């Protein structure tokens, strides 16, 4: 059992090099994609 320092929960499986669980790694990816989307939208304006 590992402990994720991002979502502060125990989890089973592999942590990334920062110690994050896969749920957090995926959510960070979604956050970055959303940032790119918003930046593209604001540039269009």
């Amino acid at each position, binding site marked *: 059992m590992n402990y994720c320092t991002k979502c502060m*929960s125990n989890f089973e499986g592999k942590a990334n090099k920062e110690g994050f669980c896969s749920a*957090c790694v995926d959510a*960070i990816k*979604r*956050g970055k994609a959303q940032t790119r989307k*918003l930046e593209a939208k604001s540039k269009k304006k």
Partner: protein
Amino acid sequence: MIKNRNIAADAGIEPSKVMMGGGALGPREIFYVAKSGTAEYAYLQARVPETHFFGTINGAMARAGDSSTVLVYPGQYKETATINVTQSNFKLLAAEIGPNKAMIRTEIRQHGNAEVPCVTCNVHGFEMAGFRVTPYSSNVGTGVLLGSSANTYGAFLHDNYFYQVEVGDAMANAITLGVDDSFDCDSTYIFNNHFFAGGNRTNGVGIVEWNSATRTVIEKNTFFQYTNHTQNYAINIYDAPGFRGQIYDNRFFAAEIGVTAKVCVAINNPTSVGGDSMIDGNKFVGYSGDDQCIASSIDNCLGLNYHNEDVIAGS
């Protein structure tokens, strides 16, 4: 501040005696939920009839009727679907509640699971206490969604810990009250919760998103905003009629490593709302100015609020 406590013990609930005199399902029954593999699971399984003991919250919800209680023992609950409260005057309670215990003991989690609200409710008299709520991290993720398809009166959310994982622009919000220009959350009472949220949140939704909600009271909560973004709001009040809210004795803290004065907003209130609300006794720490503490034109409903120990003046 309320002390950590065990609801079942305080109420003198003895699982083996709960069903005495029972038989047919009736009002005010108690249903138990525990995580398989825990000591509580084994204890309850041996003492509670299987009609009233479950391994998932949704399993208990399917059985519970109006005015009943679902008592949840410690563990992380990743339900496959939203916990949808359809029972009037229903209580969803963690067996152990309190500021510290809500942080680590009994978690309702969709982060990394299904992209649905953790809990929804469209009926009257719902009470929820003692949980850590970790919503799915996305722009539509939310912890508790009230009044999305019907008017919802008198929800009472207290002693919970809402944790929105800091993931940039995919940050979820904690509580959503009503939907814009539609159903009304009347007399919701949000008391003694701790909110921790980090992220950019550039789509203008608050940690508490106050859409159509009349007479809501937000009292004695702590909002920890880990962000330095202008459109990150702790409480975002939509431009709705019938606001009549009370926001008092809360603490708002803005934080970002290396930034002294943060530009995120604690209470955001569109201009056409105001004049019939009380915003009093709140304390704000770490914000870049008064406008970041209480934004927009609510001068006529201000009370005595403090920003880093100075009284906030209307503008």
